[in-house]
């Protein structure tokens, strides 16, 4: 009846996951009670859960990412604590089985359910606004994509309470991940969760490539798009070309595990090297899927806070697309030691180093954007400078690793762990925190507290360096990654420093929450009245904060590379806004519960597949299919926002803008 799901699945003998599950359950229950007492369920349902508004969906993605960041970080600091304790005779507080689950969960969660939703959240929120349009190409599909990602995240977290998670590392390499060596549900949780969220990610890519290539404001030609849109385009093209390979390779592993195939097994003609190749054909572009939008965020910040147009806009576009293409030609550098031969290793090693060239172009562009500018040292600029310092070192150690002989020495060592944390934290996480500060006022109408924001930055910056710099040395000395127990007592001081670093990052995460709560409490003192708090240059700052559902009453006409800046400067010079346009009613997509219901059935089906409850799996599939059919036969597609409402809102915005304009004109 319930497949292999029995009461034994609940880890009664392991206090850590059990207590954590209880705490999480209590917290969720508390939030649910609070929402009920505030009578906020209808608001949540109408404004967020069923929303097809790209801004709301973007916010939901980022909330998901922040929540999962806490989970991923908890895994991280548990590993650091274990490594700081379990030295010499001490075995620490985590058994090897548990420790292996933790590092697997940490990697899987941080990449798939923190970095990805965070980046996709920004693309959702920002891209249509920057392109000067009202929504993405497929708003309902956008909602479905989000809920499928959330469904994947749910399945991964469920493994904490029911059963176990994979003990294989975040890419589940066979033969370890085959049934022979991992008979439990852990790898199945991993596979099913990634397949479900992967569907959402591919749909997101279809949505955004279509949006960016086909839906832009009049006059917004390709070479007038803000760099963040370019990087979002490149990133989504990479998703479109890379994620199907992940789907295939995980499906093949599922066939091995569920139906006794021999794709990657040790026996029966299986070939685990095929898995290495396929997973990294996806895995390397994945790095750029994350870091390219991060580069886009830095580009927006560099230009805005330096009060200058971005230096070398076209070279930035060219560099982005070059990285997009070369990122598909370097995957083998993840397994130089596999034995592909010297020539092949050399080709991939050189290709990997070549990626440093367009990346270097970008670094110089940001530096020259800041050079000679009136740089305002707000929180995002701290992250920008911190990024450039950190990322360049991470990039250089990457060039070092791209030399096959060097890689043979430090392969799978803590040197590698230090390298990729340096590029991902220094490159991606810093950008996400910067973007969070930068676009928060656009989303909610008030800015975040600057002092606490700077404190958070210093926590991340100092914490990161303490937590990972010693790893370079340890890696050189022969410390391999994923060690539950440290044999060499002379490494103890370094591991202690690393633990302190992780704790400082933890303080930063706590301060992020404090900053959010404090900023909400004092929001009346930090209102963004004009919709343009940073003296912005791109179209998202043209509309009010938060923007109306339809973003723009009339799609803006774009002139020149910096659509909003040109418009703003003309208005300041003339001391008047452009003539009031002829408003028309606006047609917007209606809300739909399709996404959340599909995700519910996907979660049920996924859970059933993991536990071999076949009748429930079929039921889940039928449910998901039925909701699609129901949706396809809907009668009502859009609702019309009447012209009076549009006009009233637009006039209010013009009034606010006029006041602001007079202040500006008087001050200059």
């Amino acid at each position, binding site marked *: 009846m319930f497949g292999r799901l029995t009461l034994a699945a609940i880890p009664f003998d392991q206090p850590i996951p059990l207590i954590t599950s209880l705490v999480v359950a209590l917290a969720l229950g508390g939030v649910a009670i609070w929402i009920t007492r505030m009578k906020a369920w209808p608001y949540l349902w109408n404004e967020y859960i069923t929303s097809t508004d790209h801004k709301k969906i973007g916010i939901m993605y980022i909330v998901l990412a922040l929540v999962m960041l806490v989970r991923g970080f908890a895994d991280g600091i548990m590993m650091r604590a274990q490594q700081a304790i379990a030295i010499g005779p001490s075995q620490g507080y985590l058994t090897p089985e548990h420790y292996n689950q933790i590092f697997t969960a940490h990697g899987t969660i941080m990449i798939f359910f923190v970095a990805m939703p965070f980046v996709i959240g920004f693309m959702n929120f920002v891209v249509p606004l920057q392109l000067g349009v009202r*929504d993405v190409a497929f708003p309902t599909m956008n909602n479905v994509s989000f809920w499928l990602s959330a469904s994947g995240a749910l399945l991964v977290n469920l493994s904490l309470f029911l059963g176990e998670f994979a003990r294989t590392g975040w890419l589940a390499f066979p033969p370890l991940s085959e049934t022979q060596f991992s008979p439990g549900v852990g790898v199945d949780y991993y596979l099913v969760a990634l397949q479900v969220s992967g569907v959402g990610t591919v749909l997101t890519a279809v949505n955004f490539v279509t949006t960016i290539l086909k839906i832009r*404001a009049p006059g917004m030609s390709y070479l007038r798009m803000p760099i963040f849109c370019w990087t979002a385009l490149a990133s989504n093209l990479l998703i479109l070309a890379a994620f199907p390979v992940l789907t295939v*390779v995980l499906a093949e592993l599922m066939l091995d595990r569920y139906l006794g195939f021999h*794709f990657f097994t040790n026996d029966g*003609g299986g070939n685990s090297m095929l898995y290495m190749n396929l997973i990294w054909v996806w895995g390397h572009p994945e790095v750029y899927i994350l870091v390219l939008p991060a580069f886009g965020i830095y580009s927006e910040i560099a230009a805005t806070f330096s009060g200058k147009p971005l230096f070398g806009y076209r070279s930035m576009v060219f560099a982005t697309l070059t990285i997009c293409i070369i990122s598909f030609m370097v995957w083998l550098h993840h397994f130089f030691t596999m034995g592909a031969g010297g020539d092949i290793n050399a080709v991939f090693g050189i290709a990997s180093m070549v990626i440093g060239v367009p990346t270097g172009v970008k670094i110089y562009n940001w530096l020259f954007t800041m050079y000679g500018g009136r740089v305002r040292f707000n929180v995002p600029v701290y992250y920008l400078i911190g990024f450039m310092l950190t990322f360049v070192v991470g990039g250089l150690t990457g060039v070092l690793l791209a030399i096959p002989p060097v890689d043979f020495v430090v392969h799978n060592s803590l040197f590698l762990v230090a390298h990729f944390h340096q590029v991902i934290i220094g490159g991606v996480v810093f950008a996400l925190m910067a973007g969070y500060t930068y676009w928060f006022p656009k989303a909610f109408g008030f800015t975040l507290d600057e002092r606490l924001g700077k404190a958070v930055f210093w926590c991340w910056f100092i914490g990161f360096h303490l937590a990972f710099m010693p790893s370079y040395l340890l890696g050189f000395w022969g410390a391999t990654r994923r060690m539950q127990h440290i044999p060499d007592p002379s490494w103890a001081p370094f591991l202690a420093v690393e633990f302190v670093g992780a704790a400082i990052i933890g303080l930063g995460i706590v301060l992020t929450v404090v900053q959010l709560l404090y900023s909400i409490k004092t929001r009346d003192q930090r209102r963004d009245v004009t919709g343009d708090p940073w003296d912005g240059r791109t179209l998202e700052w043209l509309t009010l904060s938060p923007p109306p559902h339809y973003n723009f009453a009339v799609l803006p006409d774009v002139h020149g590379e910096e659509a909003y800046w040109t418009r703003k400067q003309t208005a300041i010079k003339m001391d008047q806004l452009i003539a009031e346009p002829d408003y028309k009613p606006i047609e917007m997509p209606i809300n739909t519960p399709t996404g959340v219901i599909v995700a519910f059935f996907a979660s049920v089906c996924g859970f059933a597949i993991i536990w071999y409850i076949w009748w429930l799996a079929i039921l889940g599939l039928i449910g998901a299919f039925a909701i699609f059919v129901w949706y396809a036969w809907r009668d009502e597609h859009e609702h019309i926002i009447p012209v009076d409402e549009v006009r009233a809102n637009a006039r209010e915005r013009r009034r606010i803008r006029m006041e602001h304009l007079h202040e500006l004109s008087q001050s200059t």
Partner: protein
Amino acid sequence: MTTEAATIGLTHGRSEDTGLGHRGPESKSIVVPYGFWLFVLSDMVLFSALFASYGTLVNATDGGPTTHQLFPATWLRSRRSPCCCRASSAAWR
């Protein structure tokens, strides 16, 4: 789609040509097939990964018979010709 809606922006007909190289959002009839074909593109990549797996493992039969031994070319041809005939005659009809 209503005619008044066709004039008002996102995915509802083109706005005027501004002479700036881009005329605003494309119509639904352009956007929807475009998205569909992008999805098909991702499907092609999916199949390329399947073909790569096939190419790698085609002879990895652990000592068992290969595809060609199980299904000899003559056998395939004998099965294929009637199918082709039927298909082509169906096409003529």
